[in-house]
């Protein structure tokens, strides 16, 4: 109950982590099934339809439900602490964001048991995703589930923007803000601009499918290529929504374990902004073979290549952060160290793909599969592992086992390169992606086998990580405030895990790497910027949960509004939009309650603060 009503950013972080972890596990299982099917030519382990459902759900799940929430978990756990705040700007909305994400994700995954998962690829290109070619409710689960989950992301993004703009501790100017906070800030801005695009797209596709609109149907005057534009106007920035937080994590971990400040801080900030900006200008590089013509292809080619420049700045700045430092290979830093070359490999194949005439060959082959996994898994997932190991003691008050951590790292990264490196060659040798099997004697067999073995090894790495968490959770709370000893930012000045109110007194920030600066000046902690006084806390509430349940019910009701049911009552309820209305009633009713009930929250009094 406590967990359902909480509005505390630290608890919501843990909820995000759990939910994200479970979806990541589902996506991982799907990946393993896909790889088993591809272990040899003409395999019959899965049938074609199931395979297409698996790749669709794997891609969708991983991107929207697997890694995004883990990113949000880290942001929630860390951002308020790093900027010296007591919570996010809108704790109620924060909870609402989590619950809509969770119920959207559940809705999407219900498709497995409710008559067919989406099967048109995670990009859901029309007309394949129209009712004519994808007749089950699968794609409806996709459009409506993502719509609901996306709501949560958008709410979260706006919340972080507001938090970072308004709630930084005294003295923390923007140019004194930790890199992870910067990354969160920029990421949230991208979310703010990119998610409305996919929202519009998903609504139009829902209308096409459920209300027989004709936005993407040529026969009805629509245009299927329009979907591709809408999807990628969102889809490309989405890639940066994923990778920028990883950049942020790496920029925290490397300085800490090199005992040096981040090299070229201001150029890092500038590069991050530039990447975000360029990220919006390059969407059509996913569409070189769609037939946009040479002018568009040339422009999008060149603008895409330009992204290599700010990215290069970041890579070299990280390397020179370590230069002259004292590098310690703890588990978080191992992941950060693994990140640099691996992500660079994904980056360079990105530049290769940017060359349109070469992309005519690369596009929709395993070369692309290799590229984006190098970026997403080799970049983002390694970054998340670094961040999780790094902040675990702060979030949970316990150090993860270093020995198991190192095992996780080595199995995961070796498995990763085995899986995906060979796929570059598969693509170049003529293997398209998204094929449920392939004919023998095309010289694809050995490389596919290697790839599958690698995937299993990654699975082993994940299991070791889970074992580490499980074993650690049975140990006592033993993490020090600054467990890595070289912490540089504010989160390391307070206990692990932090008390409900984070900071007894808001700290005064006197420079970049505020805590490090105090330590170097010989101080034990931060100088407070205020006397001890009562701390205002928001009340717990179940309304965000209820609102999300309502949307969930409304979504299901809308989806089945045109179905024939065996029973008259069911048909009556669904076909007359009664279920939809009921769901919306719950949601709007909760909203009404929220505005009517006058809740001022509560206070923690100074005596209680001192008592601890």
């Amino acid at each position, binding site marked *: 109950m406590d967990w359902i009503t909480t509005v505390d950013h630290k608890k919501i972080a843990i909820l995000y982590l759990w939910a994200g972890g479970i979806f990541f596990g589902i996506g991982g299982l799907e990946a393993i099934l896909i790889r088993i099917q591809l272990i040899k030519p003409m395999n019959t382990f899965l049938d074609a339809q199931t395979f297409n459902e698996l790749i669709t759900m794997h891609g969708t799940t991983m991107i929207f439900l697997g890694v995004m929430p883990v990113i949000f978990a880290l942001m929630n756990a860390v951002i308020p602490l790093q900027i010296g705040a007591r919570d996010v700007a809108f704790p109620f909305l924060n909870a609402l964001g989590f619950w809509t994400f969770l119920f959207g994700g559940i809705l999407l995954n219900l498709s497995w048991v409710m008559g067919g998962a989406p099967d048109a690829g995670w990009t859901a290109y029309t007309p394949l995703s129209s009712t004519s070619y994808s007749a089950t409710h699968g794609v409806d689960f996709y459009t409506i589930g993502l719509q609901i989950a996306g709501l949560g992301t958008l709410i979260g993004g706006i919340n972080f923007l507001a938090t970072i703009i308004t709630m930084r501790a005294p003295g923390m100017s923007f140019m004194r803000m930790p890199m992870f906070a910067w990354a969160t800030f920029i990421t949230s801005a991208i979310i703010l601009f990119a998610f409305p695009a996919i929202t519009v797209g998903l609504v139009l596709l829902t209308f096409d499918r459920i209300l027989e609109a004709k936005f993407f149907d040529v026969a009805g005057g629509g245009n299927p290529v329009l979907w591709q534009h809408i999807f990628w106007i969102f889809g490309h920035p989405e890639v940066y929504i994923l990778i920028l937080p990883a950049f942020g994590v790496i920029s925290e971990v490397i300085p800490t374990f090199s005992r040096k400040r981040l090299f070229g801080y201001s150029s890092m900030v500038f590069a991050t902004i530039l990447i975000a900006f360029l990220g919006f200008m390059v969407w059509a590089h996913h569409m070189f073979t769609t037939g946009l013509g040479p002018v568009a292809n040339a422009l999008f080619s060149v603008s895409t290549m330009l992204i290599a420049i700010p990215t290069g700045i970041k890579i070299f700045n990280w*390397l020179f952060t370590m230069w002259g430092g004292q590098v310690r290979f703890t588990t978080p830093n191992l992941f950060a160290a693994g990140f640099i070359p691996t992500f660079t490999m994904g980056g360079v194949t990105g530049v290769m793909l940017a060359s349109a005439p070469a992309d005519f060959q690369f596009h929709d082959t395993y070369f692309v599969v290799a590229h984006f996994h190098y970026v997403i898994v080799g970049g983002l997932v390694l970054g998340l592992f670094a961040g999780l190991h790094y902040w675990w003691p702060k979030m949970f008050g316990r150090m993860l086992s270093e020995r198991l951590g190192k095992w996780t790292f080595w199995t995961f990264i070796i498995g990763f390169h085995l899986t995906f490196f060979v796929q570059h060659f598969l693509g170049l040798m003529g293997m398209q992606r998204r094929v449920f099997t392939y004919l023998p004697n095309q010289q694809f067999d050995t490389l596919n086998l290697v790839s599958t073995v690698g995937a299993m090894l990654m699975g082993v790495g994940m299991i070791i990580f889970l074992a580490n968490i499980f074993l650690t959770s049975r140990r006592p709370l033993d993490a020090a405030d600054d467990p890595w000893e070289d912490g540089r930012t504010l989160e390391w000045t307070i206990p692990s895990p932090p008390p409900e109110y984070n900071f007894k007194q808001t700290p005064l920030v006197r420079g970049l790497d505020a805590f490090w600066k105090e330590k170097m000046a010989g101080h034990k902690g931060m100088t407070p910027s205020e006397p001890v006084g009562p701390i205002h806390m928001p009340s717990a509430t179940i309304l965000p949960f209820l609102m999300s349940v309502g949307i969930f019910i409304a979504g299901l009701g809308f989806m089945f509004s045109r179905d024939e049911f065996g029973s008259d009552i069911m048909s009556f309820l669904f076909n007359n939009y009664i279920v939809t209305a009921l769901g919306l009633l719950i949601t709007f009713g909760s909203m009404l309650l929220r505005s009517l009930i006058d809740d001022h929250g509560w206070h923690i009094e100074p005596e209680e603060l001192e008592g601890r």
Partner: protein
Amino acid sequence: MMKTWQAGRRLLLMTAALGLILAGCGREDLSVLRPQGPAAESSFALMKLSITIMIVVLLIVFSISAYVWIRFRRKPGQQEIPKQVEGSFKLEVLWTVIPLILVIILAVPTVKAVFAAGNDHSDDKDAIQVKVTGHQYWWEFEYTDYGVTTAQDLVIPAGKDIAFELSTKDVLHSFWVPSLSGKMDTNPDGTVNRFSFSAPNEGVYRGKCAELCGPSHGFMEFKVKSVSEAAFEDWLASMKAPESVLPEDPVLAEKFKSQCLTCHAVGSMPASSVAPNLTGIGSRESVAGILLNDDTRVDGAPVEENLKTWLHDPQSVKPGNTMPNPKDLGLTDEEIDGIAEYLAGYTLD
């Protein structure tokens, strides 16, 4: 200046070496890395250039990484605080400018090649005009200047430019012959694509569909048969021969007409069709695009056997395809075998 020139030469050398290594990868009739025509070569040239540049970048990043990890590892007992360096304007400018130069080196030939690939041969009198139509899960080729339509096997004269007009009858597909050219999507009316390639050497090349189009997307293959000019003329002539060859047995012929020709066509009857044209199917490279008619190979079988495999259960060969099972159309096993035999014998000379 001298230095840049030398670096450029080294880059060229590396490109050449890389080309040699990569060219060992994959089958000649299938691999992007073994281009057999000018279009694929132009892509391959860019790929080699970009791979070379990128390998140089990777080597630099890898070596600096290895160096810092080893050289600046914290030694036991090391406690002094390292110097907190803010950054270095000079270095940061350096690693902004170098990537910029590398990007320009790649961008210039890229833009050139983009416009070259955009060359439209649709008005070229010397080019063969072919209308390609994608269907779930087969390919239709219409030679508009000759009034000939075929499926699965695209027959072309070696060395001539082929000007394609691409479209689809259902969902999006993508037309791809890796060793001859990059791919291009087949869109529905309104956004029809044009492009062209040529195959200087005679041979059979494997083509694929590269856009997810349904369950049998992976099986949506086709063959490009590049033949001599004379052989191409012969092929056209025999395709144009108006008489339609029907099974000799009149009962079988009747079944074939009433059950198969409702969707397919042979010769001139019926005039249009919604399924692959079967004229001369006995001389094709494959049945259904994937059952190879080559009994000298382990992955192939005689035409007749492949036809039987297909006709006895089309769904198990290509799941989700729209052809009804001949058994459900009321054909007996013997009749199916008879039709397979007839089709296998229906060759073009």
